[in-house]
């Protein structure tokens, strides 16, 4: 017994000294950091905690605190489950489309060809277009007398003339269910694929050239070089792109709203907003808390799947 007490004492004293030394050493940095730190605590962390607390409050003014009533109310709403499904579906569709398109464009840009600078500038264009504008622009394309229908109509006419198709295309309502889901995903894809492309391009440029040359000498085909060298070495970049995009895709809110389909395709964020509009504050808070839990589960599951270590950098 005595030995353990004696063992502890210097340890405790040592820690105090360490903390004092830490402040002595870093006081200047800590002073500089304080305003930022306080702002993030007060204006990000505190609201998050307030929101979670609110979600466990009874849904009337001055209601008792630990109560699951809002969550029970949430799970009895059909629209909640609908928005849960839509959120997951849109996240899956848009992130996979963005990864495929981003990888494709990054591979194209990693080659040398005439006009590459111009192509790169065009590919980065959506980054400079506000999200709302990206979504409203999609209305001209996806509306029933929009440009997508017109392009398909013209194509079908060509096919009719060639005698391949029997009659010309009649038009689809892309902003109605079930296609509206894809309209939202594509609107999101148009806006953020440049970001994915830049992350993957940076990853591609970090792959040493000699690897490809060595593989070529060994007689590897283009496809083999892609699957044996490019993809494995690109994994960290792919992982960070999926995580960054996945988080944002679950939080999608502006695209359905500006496309004018948030009534037909409710997502969790727009569900939380409509509850807020109806002054069901606790239900709204519960919905966004569930969204947070979903994001956490998705990120952790994905990290488990691919191995967390490579993302940490």
């Amino acid at each position: 017994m005595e030995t353990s007490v004696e063992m502890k004492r210097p340890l405790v004293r040592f820690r105090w000294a360490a903390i004092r030394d830490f402040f002595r050493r870093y006081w200047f940095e800590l002073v500089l950091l304080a305003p930022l730190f306080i702002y993030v605590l007060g204006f990000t962390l505190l609201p998050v905690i307030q929101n979670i607390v609110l979600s466990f409050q009874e849904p009337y003014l001055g209601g008792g605190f630990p109560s699951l009533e809002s969550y029970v109310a949430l799970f009895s709403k059909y629209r909640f489950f609908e928005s849960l499904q839509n959120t997951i579906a849109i996240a899956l569709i848009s992130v996979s489309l963005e990864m495929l398109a981003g990888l494709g464009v990054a591979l194209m840009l990693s080659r040398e060809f005439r006009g590459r600078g111009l192509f790169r500038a065009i590919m980065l264009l959506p980054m400079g277009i506000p999200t709302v504008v990206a979504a409203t622009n999609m209305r001209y394309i996806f509306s029933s007398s929009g440009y997508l229908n017109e392009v398909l109509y013209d194509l079908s006419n060509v096919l009719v003339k060639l005698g391949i198709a029997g009659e010309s295309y009649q038009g689809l309502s892309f902003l109605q269910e079930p296609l509206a889901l894809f309209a939202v995903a594509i609107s999101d894809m148009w806006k953020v694929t440049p970001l994915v492309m830049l992350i993957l391009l940076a990853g591609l440029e970090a792959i040493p050239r000699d690897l490809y040359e060595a593989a070529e000498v060994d007689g590897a085909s283009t496809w083999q070089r892609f699957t044996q060298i490019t993809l494995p070495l690109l994994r960290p970049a792919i992982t960070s792109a999926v995580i960054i995009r996945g988080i944002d895709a679950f939080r999608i809110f502006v695209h359905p709203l500006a496309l004018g389909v948030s009534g037909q395709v409710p997502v969790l964020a727009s569900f939380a907003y409509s509850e807020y509009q109806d002054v069901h504050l606790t239900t709204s808070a519960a919905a966004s808390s569930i969204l947070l839990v979903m994001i956490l589960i998705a990120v952790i599951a994905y990290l488990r799947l691919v191995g967390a270590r490579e993302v940490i950098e």
Partner: protein
Amino acid sequence: MKAPRGIFTRILFFVLVVAVALLVISPVYFMLIMSLGDPEETFATQHPDYIISHLDFAQPGDRDYTDTSWDRILPRWWSRVVLEPAAGGVRLDADLASRLFKSLRVAFMTAGISLLLGIPGAYAISRLAPNLKYGLMLGLFLTRMYPEVGIALPVAVTFLKWDRILTGIKFYDSAFGLELVMAHLIITLPLSTWILVGTFDTIPRELEEAASVDGASRLGTIFRIIIPLAAPGIAVATIFSWLASWDEVTYAIYLTLFNRTLPLEIVNIVGRSPPPVIATYATLVTIPVVFITYFLQRWLKAGYLAGAIKG
């Protein structure tokens, strides 16, 4: 990598490049012709034209016709959105002006305050012990995981509470835009700090040590050595903060009622106004962004973008 080989692959590659470029440009192109062109050609028809034959100017007899020189310069939908009749001619539409100026004010103030808090904060993080630095960076990244609708709700409640307690200063739905500056900082502070930490990390500590040997104070070193060297990264952080604030809609929805921002106004008129009016608003929101990115693009180098992407 080398250029693609073989004439057939090269043609295929070229076709692919052109097709992808067209797909990316087309939404913006359709927005422009929608706002400039004749609705008979672009939207009031079952089969819209790909190319507009003429700019659609207001004609005498139109509801919006004001008969000033502006009617010969601005296409019909532009003069409808941008101008309003006033004594002795036309002036900038009052609603549009208030929204435009609120958006501009909020974006510039958000970018400015992000730098004011972000530069010292990021410098400190970059000079802290590695464990602590990593923890803080991860913490900043984690703030992105929480849905904005969840943060905006308690913030809106807080602002309404403050409005009841404090007299003389208005937060919720203020004309000035203080509530949005405070809310947009929630997004831009982690973003700019991420970019700035990446920048400060590239500046060797030996430079600071040399300066302190020469007798400069630590604050003096930051102002005279660190900040000038970090200028490109600071510029990128400013641009990204400005753009994030200009782009932002979610907090604006929760925190304003009548004093809307320009992007929020677009959300508000979707489904209510004719498509050319929406397209004109959309073009208006895009113009400042194009200018800003054009004039500041020389700062947008890949190395700094890498930091921005991670944020």
